[in-house]
């Protein structure tokens, strides 16, 4: 056998598992998601966890688990050295980082490679190149991809004499514009500026926030495209350089750059527009030398133009909607690719069909957040936990009744996904599924999703990315106040009923099987939540 032949890609797919043992460097629903894929492939799994997660679902589902530190993420899930040590101790061959935490830290991927382990994701050099949003913008523009108008070099904010030049450049780009962090993500370091007078202060504030969040204070300018939808393309590539698009997702419902609802395909695109978008995304990825799974993000404006934003070199939270539409298990595919296999036939077939999808999937993120208080975190202990089931429903979660949602981590507690033949049918299914969902003990984003699932405007098509920040607060206040009205009367009725029980010598503790004895009357009950009859 020649050297070229031995280094060519392995094609003996599925004869044996891609790895014997994989360490999952994450927590929550995504750790559970990855462990499930490993188990299906016959791969043993190692979980790492903090002291706050000793009883967490990912720890219980894994074959073994290693405690790597205290509750705070910095002392545990962000400790790359501890994760790599745990992988070496347990004889793991590969590390899957999930999303968040270490997933897009090029230095971590490099350390994994240097330790002789496989990083399930793109090579560290590609993560570094694409993680620098400025370098990614330059690379995409050089590959002929339309990028959002703005600057291509870091603003020299430490030199007072340069401020004038930046302001002049900003006026050329046009206001309003965004100050964005080169190392950014999740809206950190981002500032919206409407006039040149405010620019110097926004640059300083954005840069300071970026430095504290990412250790890099580089910022640049980007024009605000408004109104716009957020459309992103799921990419997957092997070591041979074959890169395909598995379809696109619309994630326009966001608040402060955090996604709330995602769907695939993006509604209202023609097959030709889809093909063009997919091809553009593949071109950007190829220019960067991408391998494994990644996502190219674009803004879609009213003139139906796509503008490149960035490439995320990780498995996305919302990968499931693409899985439901394409029939590809992206996590499994990541593991095969990381082990040196070619793209599977399933991926190639799905990519060929990606411009004319036959199904529609929608995901809502159920988070421990208060939708009436600007989605402020609402950690606590879950009481009731009833998830929907039935046709076309998928739940990705790592919590259950009685589980604690710790304040140290991301507030996402479950992803509810639905799939059906058309978007209309998928929305009906989503509304039905959300009616079956019941959670107490903590406030969640359920009220927001219930509203969206039946909102006529959303049914006609996704709103602009600013819709939640601009329009939801007033809707939330109205809906919460109507709910409080019903809750007030229900609370009164329930307390009076239980008092009447006690006075009648009945126990309040086992209320089952009481039939329909009239217990309490409560005035002015109004329709908020109707059980399907």
């Amino acid at each position, binding site marked *: 056998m020649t050297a070229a032949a031995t280094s060519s890609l392995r094609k003996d797919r599925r004869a044996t598992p891609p790895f014997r043992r994989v360490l999952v460097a994450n927590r929550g629903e995504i750790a559970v998601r990855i462990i499930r894929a490993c188990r299906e492939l016959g791969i043993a799994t190692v979980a790492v966890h903090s002291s706050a997660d000793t009883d967490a679902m990912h720890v219980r589902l894994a074959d073994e688990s290693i405690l790597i530190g205290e509750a705070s993420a910095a002392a545990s899930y962000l400790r790359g050295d501890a994760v790599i040590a745990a992988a070496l101790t347990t004889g793991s061959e590969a590390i899957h980082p999930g999303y968040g935490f270490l997933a897009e830290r090029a230095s971590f991927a490099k350390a994994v490679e240097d330790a002789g382990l496989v990083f399930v994701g793109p090579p560290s050099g590609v993560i570094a190149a694409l993680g620098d949003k400025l370098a990614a913008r330059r690379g995409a523009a050089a590959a002929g991809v339309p990028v959002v108008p703005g600057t291509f070099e870091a603003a020299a904010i430490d030199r007072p004499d340069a401020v004038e030049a930046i302001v002049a450049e900003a006026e050329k780009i046009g206001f309003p514009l965004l100050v964005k962090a080169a190392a950014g993500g999740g809206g950190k370091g981002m500032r919206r500026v409407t006039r040149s007078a405010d620019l110097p202060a926004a640059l300083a504030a954005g840069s300071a926030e970026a430095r504290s969040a990412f250790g890099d204070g580089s910022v640049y300018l980007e024009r605000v495209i408004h109104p716009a939808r957020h459309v992103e393309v799921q990419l997957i590539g092997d070591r041979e350089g074959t890169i395909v698009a598995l379809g696109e997702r619309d994630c326009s419902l966001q608040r402060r750059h955090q996604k709330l609802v995602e769907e695939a395909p993006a509604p209202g695109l023609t097959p030709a527009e889809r093909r063009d978008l997919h091809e553009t995304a593949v071109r950007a990825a190829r220019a960067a030398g991408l391998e494994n799974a990644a996502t190219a993000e674009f803004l879609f404006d009213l003139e139906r133009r796509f503008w490149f934003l960035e490439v995320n070199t990780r498995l996305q939270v919302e990968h499931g909607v693409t899985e439901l539409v394409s029939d590809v298990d992206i996590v499994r595919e990541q593991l095969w690719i990381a082990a040196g296999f070619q793209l599977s036939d399933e991926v190639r077939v799905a990519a060929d069909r990606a411009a004319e999808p036959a199904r529609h999937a929608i995901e809502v993120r159920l988070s421990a957040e208060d939708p009436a208080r600007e989605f402020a975190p609402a950690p606590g202990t879950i009481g009731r936990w009833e998830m929907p089931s039935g046709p076309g429903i998928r739940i990705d979660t790592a919590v259950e009744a009685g589980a604690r949602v710790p304040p140290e981590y991301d507030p996402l507690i479950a992803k509810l996904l639905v799939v059906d033949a058309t978007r209309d049918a998928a929305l009906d299914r989503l509304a039905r599924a959300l009616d079956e969902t019941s959670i107490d*003990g903590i406030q969640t984003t359920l009220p927001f999703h219930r509203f969206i699932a039946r909102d006529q405007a959303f049914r006609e098509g996704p709103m602009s990315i600013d819709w939640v920040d601009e329009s939801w607060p007033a809707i939330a206040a109205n809906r919460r106040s109507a*709910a409080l009205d019903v809750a*007030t009367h229900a609370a009164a*009725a329930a307390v009076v009923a239980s008092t009447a029980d006690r006075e009648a010598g009945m126990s309040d503790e086992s209320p089952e099987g009481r039939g*329909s004895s009239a217990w309490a009357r409560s005035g002015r009950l109004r329709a908020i939540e*109707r059980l399907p009859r």
Partner: protein
Amino acid sequence: MTRLVHVGPSTATALPGDEPRLVGASDADDTVVEAFGPGRWVVHGPGGTDTWALNRPARIDRDGVTTVEVVVDGWRFELEVEDAARAALRRRATRARDTGTASGPLDVRAIIPGRVAAVRVTVGDTVEAGGSLLVVEAMKMQNEIRAPRDGIVERVAVADGQTIDNGDLLVVLR
């Protein structure tokens, strides 16, 4: 027999503008509250035409105040239910105390658990309503804790990096 009860959101879930209400409730006739599996209560409206699903798990009786958790359409409330006559009595007592200390100190307490990421004021600072007092980091988010009214900082009860729980005293304004 109809009873008049006083119902108001507990401090854990109340938002500005949530007013306590007087509600008439009786244990007779056409509206029923019925158990529907452990902890789930269903209220049938007049004539039996409407059915509402309400979650009503643990309740705590304290000094004649019953705290009930109710989740309606995904909105979670902790409501304090108290006999109307008793509530009126208590309100009078509280009002008397309030007038005595109209310009008295105001405790600013944590509404979310987390970690203090930054303390923006020191003792003696003058703050305006809405001005930032400190930043609490919870679930990767920076949350500004703002002054509910104008005042002077009398005490800062927490320090940078400290872990805090719901209801912990943060700052005292006078």
